[in-house]
C-alpha cells in the first residue's frame, strides 16, 4: 500500500501536527519508503494466530477502587503554559 499527499495531509490533521504544504511531498516519499519496507510482513502466514496482547505472561493485578492520591492541583498546574484560578487556559472553544 502507498499513501498520497492527500492521505498524508489527513494523517497530519488526525495527529494534530501542522505540516507546511511544501513539506508534504518529501514526507509522502519518506512514509512510502517505510510502508514499502514493512510490506514484507504479508509474507508471514498469520491466519490462525492470535495477536500478542501481553509481553510477559502475567495476570494484571487487581487493586481496591479507592482514592490513594490527590490534592496536587498546584503541582499539576506548575508546568501549564497558561493557567488561571486553578484551571488550564485554552483558546476560546465556544463562540
Amino acid at each position, binding site marked *: 500500500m502507498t499513501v498520497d499527499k492527500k492521505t498524508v495531509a489527513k494523517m497530519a490533521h488526525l495527529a*494534530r501536527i*501542522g505540516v507546511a504544504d511544501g513539506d508534504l511531498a518529501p*514526507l509522502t516519499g519518506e*512514509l512510502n519508503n*517505510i510502508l514499502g519496507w514493512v510490506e514484507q510482513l504479508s509474507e508471514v502466514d498469520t491466519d490462525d494466530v492470535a495477536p500478542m496482547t501481553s*509481553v*510477559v*505472561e*502475567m495476570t494484571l493485578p487487581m487493586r481496591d477502587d479507592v482514592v490513594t492520591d490527590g490534592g496536587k492541583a498546584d503541582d499539576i498546574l506548575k508546568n501549564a503554559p497558561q493557567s488561571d484560578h486553578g484551571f488550564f487556559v485554552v483558546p476560546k472553544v465556544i463562540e
Partner: protein
Amino acid sequence: MGALTELDIAGAIAAMDKGACSARELAAAHIAAMEGARPLNAFITETPEKALAMADAADAARARGAAGPLCGIPLAIKDLFCTDGVRTTAGSHILENFTPAYESTVSASLWHAGAVMLGKTNLDEFAMGSSNESSYFGPAINPWKAEGDDRERVPGGSSGGSTAAVAAGLAMAAIGTDTGGSIRQPAAFSGVVGLKPTYGRCSRWGVVAFASSLDHPGPITRTVMDAAIMLEAMAGFDWRDSTSVDVPATGFRAAVGGGVKGLKIGIPREFRIDGMAPEIEALWQTGIDWLRDAGATIVDISLPLTKYALPVYYIIAPAEASSNLARYDGVRYGLRDDGENLIDMYERSRAAGFGAEVRRRVLIGTYALSAGYYDAYYLKAQKVRGLIAGEFRAVFGDVDAILTPTAPSGAFALGEKSDDPIAMYLNDVFTVTADLAGIPAISVPAGKTADGLPLGLQVIGPAFDEAMVLRIGRVIEECAAFEGHPPAWWRQS
C-alpha cells in the same frame, strides 16, 4: 587506587568502605570530569550542587553504618526519567522547559540505595533514534575515535549520552531505556556494558513514554558485575506500573561468577545477515570459541522470523508512540504556540515542538492505527510479534541462552546515516527481537574494529533469567579483557 573516575561501582564501594575516599571526593572528581567534557555534549542538564549534597548525605549515612548498596555512587540519568525538581526534556523542544514534580520509580530506587545524581544525559528525541542525532539539544559525541580518522562519531542511541558519559569517565554508571536496542547498541558503540532486563522487571512509571509495550529501563555500566549491582537496586514490583511484574529481583550479583560450564549456547543462523561485515562475523566466532573453551556446548539454532522483527517494530513502536505523544498538546505542559483556535493551537504547538523523526513516526503510527488500516498493519504486526516471541520460547527449551553480535558495525561518523531512515533503523537488526519478545539481553564490550572502535557481543536469555545473561556476559568480559579508556581528546583545560 587509580583515578577516581576510572573506578567501577564494586571498586568504589570497597574504597569508601575502607575510608580510602569519600562520596564527596568521588562526586567532585566526576563533576570536574563532566564539566571538562562539554565537547561530548553527553549531558543536557548538569546538577553539580545536587550531586555534592547527595554525596554529603551518603558520607553521613556511611559514617552511621546506614550505607545502602549504591551509597555514594555518582550516576548519570537518561533525560527520559522524570526527576523531581530537575528539568526533564526527553531530548525534545516540546519538553524543553518541563520540570516534573515527581520522581520516576527507578531513579527513586537508586537514590534510596544511596546513589548520587550528576545530571541528565542526552538522547535521541523521545528515544527515537540509533545515533543521538535526533536530539533537539544536538548529538552527544562518542569518546572513541577511529585511528587515523579525526571525524567525530555517534555514541549510538537512543541512550547515547548515558553510554558516552560512562565510557568517558564522567559517570560511574548510568541508566537508559531500551525500546528497540537503545541501551545495547549505544553500549556496543561506546565500549560499555548495557543490560536490557525482562519486560516488567524495572518500572516504567515516571519514564517519558515512547512505546509502552516495548520500553525497558536498564543499567549502563563499566563491568558486568556493576550491571548486576545496578539491576538489584532498580528492579522490583511497582503498583503504579500495571505491567510491573511481582517476582523476586535478587541474586544477580551472586550469579555473575557462575561460569558457563555445561551450558548450551544457541547460535541463530538467521543472524548471519547478507553483507555482514567480516570483522563482526570474526568477533562473533571469537565469542563462540571463548564460550566453548570455557565449557559451554555450542548449538546451531534457527529463528526463522528474525528478518521480520524490524518491520514489526516499525509498525508497533510508531503506533504506540502516536498514541503516547498525543498528550503533548500545549495545554497541560510543554511548548505552546498560540493559534487562531484550539485545533490550530494543537497543530502549531506540535509542529514547532516535534523534530523530523518524531513527526515521521507519529504519522506512520497514526496511519497504522487509522480506520481501514488497523488490521493490515497494527494487528498483523502484533500477530507476527507473537510468533517471534513463540520462536524464542521454543528455542529456550533447547538452549540456555543465545549469543549474537550487538550491532552490525562499529560507531559511524556524525551525519553518515542521517539521510536514510531505513539505513538508520538497520542498526537495531540484532537487538530488536529481544524487545519484541520482552526477554533479557546484555551487550558486553568484546573487541575492536581494525581501526580501534569498540564492538559488542550480545547474550539473550529466557524471560526473568537475567542471572543467565549476566554469568555468560561475565565470561565474555573476562576473555575479551577490553581496554576501556579512550584517550581524553575532549578534555578542556
